[in-house]
């Protein structure tokens, strides 16, 4: 190779490396921005509920290809695909309970329509769906808490008497009536949102929230004495330990 051709090859190589670096750096910059955007897009607003059988949000966003088949097969037009300007990842299906709740079809057509398994086909009994969890968020406005017999959330619930029960309590205000307190049971509530839709208030007092947001969790070391007693068949602590009484000292 002559000196000139070697120099030409070296210049060409340098040009190639510079061009490649330029392209790679620009693309990487875009990638960084998009990566942060993707991370933020994982946070779904509490009012947006995924269809029945939807995998955990992070897995769902990797599995859902935004084809809209679930939307097409939803007979009640409950589901819609998120628009790019909305807070839900663009093109993914969701519904808002206060607008149109899930009617809990027995054959679950939305799950059947999903081609990728983003909606898990292991869900065959709609009563086992866990789209979210209803929470009686505001006791100050709930009519039943005021001593009235609204009961709408209880009566509309597809799992009446299971997912929502009415628990009688003494009405301290009147002194002679009973409050019928709506209580949601997470082992039955599917998160369909019919209670939130039906709530007669201007703003629903009962709302469906993502389970992670709605549900508390006991410390793993925690043991409830009466449950342990039931399991063991007898009291775990045999005799009542009589601890010394410590009364507050009388103030002068």
């Amino acid at each position, binding site marked *: 190779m002559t000196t000139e051709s070697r120099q030409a090859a070296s210049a060409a190589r340098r040009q190639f490396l510079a*061009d*490649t670096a*330029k*392209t*790679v750096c*620009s*693309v*990487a910059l*875009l*990638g960084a921005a*998009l*990566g942060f*955007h*993707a*991370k933020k*897009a*994982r946070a779904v607003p509490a009012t947006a509920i995924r269809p029945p059988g939807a995998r955990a949000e*992070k*897995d769902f*966003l*990797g*599995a*859902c*290809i*935004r*084809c*809209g*088949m679930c*939307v*097409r*097969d939803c007979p009640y037009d409950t589901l*819609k*695909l998120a*628009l*790019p*300007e*909305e807070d839900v*990842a*663009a*093109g993914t299906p969701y519904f808002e309970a206060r607008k149109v709740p899930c009617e809990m079809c027995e054959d679950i057509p939305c799950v059947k329509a*999903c*081609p*990728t*398994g*983003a909606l898990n*086909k292991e869900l065959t009994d709609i009563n086992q769906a866990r789209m979210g969890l209803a929470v009686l968020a505001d006791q100050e406005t709930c009519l039943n808490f005021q001593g009235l017999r609204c009961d709408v959330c209880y009566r509309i619930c597809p799992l009446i008497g299971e997912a929502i029960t009415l628990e009688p309590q003494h009405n301290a205000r009147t002194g002679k009536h009973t409050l019928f307190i709506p209580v949601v049971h997470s082992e039955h509530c599917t998160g369909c949102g019919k209670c939130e839709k039906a709530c007669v208030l201007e703003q629903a007092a009962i709302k469906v929230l993502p389970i992670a947001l709605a549900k508390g969790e006991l410390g793993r070391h925690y043991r409830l004495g009466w449950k342990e007693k039931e399991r063991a068949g007898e009291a775990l602590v045999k005799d009542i330990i009589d601890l010394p009484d410590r009364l507050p000292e009388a103030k002068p």
Partner: protein
Amino acid sequence: MSARIGAEAVAAKGWPGAHKWLLLRRLSQISIFALFLAGPLAGYWIVKGNLAYSLTLDTLHLADPYVLLQSLLAGHKPERAALIGGLTVLAFYFLAGGRVYCSWVCPVNLVTDAAAWLREKLGIRGGASISRKTRYWMLVLTLALAAATGTLAWELVNPVSMLHRGIIFGIGAAWVMVLAVFLFDLFVSHRGWCGHLCPMGAFYSAVGYFSPLRVSAARRAQCNDCMDCFAVCPEPQVIRPALKGEQQGIGPVILPGACTNCGRCIDVCSKDVFSFAPRFAHRVPEKTRDIGTPGLSRSSHS
């Protein structure tokens, strides 16, 4: 170069003859929209879904292998319906030419062709110099992002899927992205989106790397150097070796996967140099000349 691209071809073959493949392509793009829209607009559910996945007459599964690949890398194994659909589409584009997707199916092609047409009309020249290789890096980026985030990160902003989904399911603000692509192609870079940046085009050019159906400059000896094919081609770099490579012993078939099989070069050539041809026609001229003289080296022709 002639005063107006394709003027010679129109004079030689008439307007319909000089726009045959363009019209067929538009017909294909519009028919696909019509099929997808017949359900939501008129209640005729022939096709359900969108280009990511669709179900035709409740039997034919079709899925976009690019989005499925992202999903796989994100850690999800798609179920049977999507896999069958993805493999069917992959097989089709392998046979027909990978980027047939770009020129015959993709909705953004209508947008970028319009931008290129207007750019020509307004005489806009120059602009940002972006390497055509950028799209392959974009492809690497989108796949790497899927793997790194475990989500379909690119699908949050992909103008291609956004436009098609938008037209069928409601566009929302997705038109902003489409307008951005149009303006980018019009003012910033000639054929900027489809020819330089789009990772989907990069993916499909890889799918069609060995496609049997290609465009061939079969009658390249008749070329009168009017340059119309270079002016009209969205990927003009693919033409030169096939059209002008006879002296170097290069065959007439346009082999690179970047060629979209759009057929515009066939339309605008007044000399009928180009035609669709099988890939293996690449070496035919040498063979025909070699008949009867086995062992004759190619160099004797150059």
